[in-house]
């Protein structure tokens, strides 16, 4: 089906299913219950799951298949966002031109950066990509290009946004004034209350999820293609590859460009959900974050990056919101001394300490589960005697 074998098709269906039912899965706790804090099913976070899933899938095509560790992929995400916002400013809020341009611009940038960086391998490649991305960040943060040209290009640290006096030449009398796809607004949503539950179905999320499914499908096809085979050959043995008459560089460059375009698409989608592009999304730690997502989920696996992106974004958004007051409420039933010691310990890892949790989880995964969550799933499946296959390990929810 769709040019996939049965196993891959099943995996694709799992992703489709997860995407479709995410509003239910992520709102598993009733709205007013104490556990509702852990619900991740609000529009912004669900959109981020999908968008960063796309970003990580693209990154995995480069890192997972060829083994080239880029530390500068956030640059492509950033220029994608800038490109999309510029389209909003010049043409209007329909997201289609923005998304197209964001992919094109990120693609062009990745041709340049990839062409130069791929002349080196190993850590030299990583540092080259890092250097390029940091340059792009500095240029965006102080709007250096804009300054050299005498215009506003990135609007510095405030971020590029749409002003009411922008040209927006395609903006008709009745066009929405928020990003939309042919009139369907990205921030529109349906709310479905069932008993104590409340499920939200945001347009923006389903729009992003559509791209996630497409991106995932494309990545399966690439993994199973002769091209994907060649990329794995690059990672496995570059020497044998050249002595087999193959030129690794166009293969890695193509992978680099594809993953750059994925990142550009993710950036364009981010801007479509929220029409503001900030320079911080190009900072090197953001590039590090996509590496972390990919590894956490399982590098080189199909579903891993999606799981990793979901886990990191969930942690970032939920754990950082656990403040001490909340902790005291939760542990208030305990005797005071116990309550205070638990809260003291927990506060290292929650609220402003969420970076600590991220660091710890990340280290634990690298040390004990080098294959990431996918490997964890496989081990669990093996322990409980289930057949260890690709679908088995995706049966668990995204978080």
């Amino acid at each position, binding site marked *: 089906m769709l*040019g*996939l*074998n049965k196993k891959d098709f099943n995996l694709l269906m799992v992703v489709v299913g997860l995407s479709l039912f995410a509003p239910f899965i992520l709102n598993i706790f009733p709205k007013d219950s104490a556990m509702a804090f852990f619900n991740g099913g609000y529009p912004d976070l669900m959109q981020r799951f999908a968008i960063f899933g796309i970003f990580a899938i693209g990154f995995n095509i480069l890192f997972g298949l060829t083994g080239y560790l880029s530390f500068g992929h956030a640059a492509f995400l950033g220029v994608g966002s800038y490109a999309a916002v510029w389209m909003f400013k010049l043409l209007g809020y329909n997201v289609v031109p923005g998304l197209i341009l964001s992919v094109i611009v990120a693609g062009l940038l990745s041709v340049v950066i990839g062409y130069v960086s791929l002349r080196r391998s190993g850590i030299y490649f990583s540092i080259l990509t890092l250097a390029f991305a940091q340059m792009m960040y500095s240029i965006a943060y102080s709007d250096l290009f804009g300054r050299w040209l005498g215009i506003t290009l990135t609007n510095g640290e405030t971020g590029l946004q749409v002003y009411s006096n922008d040209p927006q030449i395609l903006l008709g009398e009745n066009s929405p004034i928020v990003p939309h796809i042919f009139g369907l607004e990205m921030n529109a949503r349906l709310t479905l209350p069932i008993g104590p539950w409340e499920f939200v179905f945001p347009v923006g999320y389903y729009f992003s999820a559509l791209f996630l499914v497409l991106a995932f499908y494309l990545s399966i*096809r*690439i993994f*199973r*293609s*002769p*091209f*994907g*085979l*060649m990329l*794995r*050959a690059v*990672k*496995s*043995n570059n*020497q*044998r*590859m*050249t*002595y*087999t*008459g*193959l*030129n690794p560089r*166009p*293969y890695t460059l*193509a992978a680099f460009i*594809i993953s750059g375009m994925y990142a550009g698409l993710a950036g364009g989608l981010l801007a479509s959900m929220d029409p503001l592009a900030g320079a911080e999304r190009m900072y090197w730690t953001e590039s590090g974050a996509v590496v972390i997502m990919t590894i956490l989920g399982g590098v080189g696996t199909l579903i891993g990056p999606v799981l990793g992106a979901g886990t990191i974004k969930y942690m970032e958004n939920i754990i950082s919101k656990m403040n001490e007051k909340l902790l005291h409420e939760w542990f208030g039933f305990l005797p005071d001394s116990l309550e205070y010691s638990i809260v003291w310990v927990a506060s290292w890892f929650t609220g402003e300490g969420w970076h600590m949790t991220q660091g710890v989880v990340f280290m634990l995964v690298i040390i004990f589960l080098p294959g990431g969550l996918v490997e964890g799933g496989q081990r669990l499946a093996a322990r409980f005697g289930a057949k260890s296959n690709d679908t088995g390990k995706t049966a668990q929810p995204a978080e």
Partner: protein
Amino acid sequence: MGILEVKDVNKRFGGLQALGNVNLSVQENTVHAIIGPNGAGKSTLLNCLIGKLIPDTGSVMFDGQSVLGRLPYEINQMGISRVFQTPEIFGELNVMENMMISCFAKRDGAFRMQAMADMYREKEVVEKAEKMLEDMAMIDKRHDHTASMSRGDKRRLEIAMCLSQEPRLLLLDEPTAGMARADTNNTIDLLKQIKEDRDITIAIIEHDMHVVFSLAERITVLAQGTPLVEDTPDKIKGHPKVQEAYLGEAA
């Protein structure tokens, strides 16, 4: 005029003359062995043939075309395949995938973007790879991961990959190094079989005289970066210079 013509090749590393005025001619459809003591420059010569090293002076012609200045993959595409001393295969992939990489390389050249095709639906490539595995008696190992295979099997796979590219010249760098006797004999038989089945020129660098004398039709003896003598195996065996420079030492 041989298929491979090496003329006046010199290569220095700092103060060391690794190759001095090497001349070599390998005739089409023969097995040509290059032997010599350690440090004689055998590997350096080989590396000059496949583009890994560029000689300081001299020329290397393959089938009338110069290989100098070409990148390794271009030289491979001209029809020269190399088998390494330690088997170089794609360690993280399985046997069939290894085979398919070289079959794709033969069919599509150095680069072809096929990101949407399913590799297992490329019938001709799959069939060719399977055929080659059958020929090499490895078909039942097709799903094995190469990392867990024996050295002999790895060597066999590497040779299979090279052959699937239908090279005109196969370069073997000590193909039996580090192998047990049984594996060595198997490899000799395999190479003999290959020579019988197809029109192919084989150049072999080898330490093991047993292997050399079982296979070679011509032998070049290299010492201190220069060819001492080139002749048939029988003549080489009795050659006094060779006795002195190499075989005597071994005895």
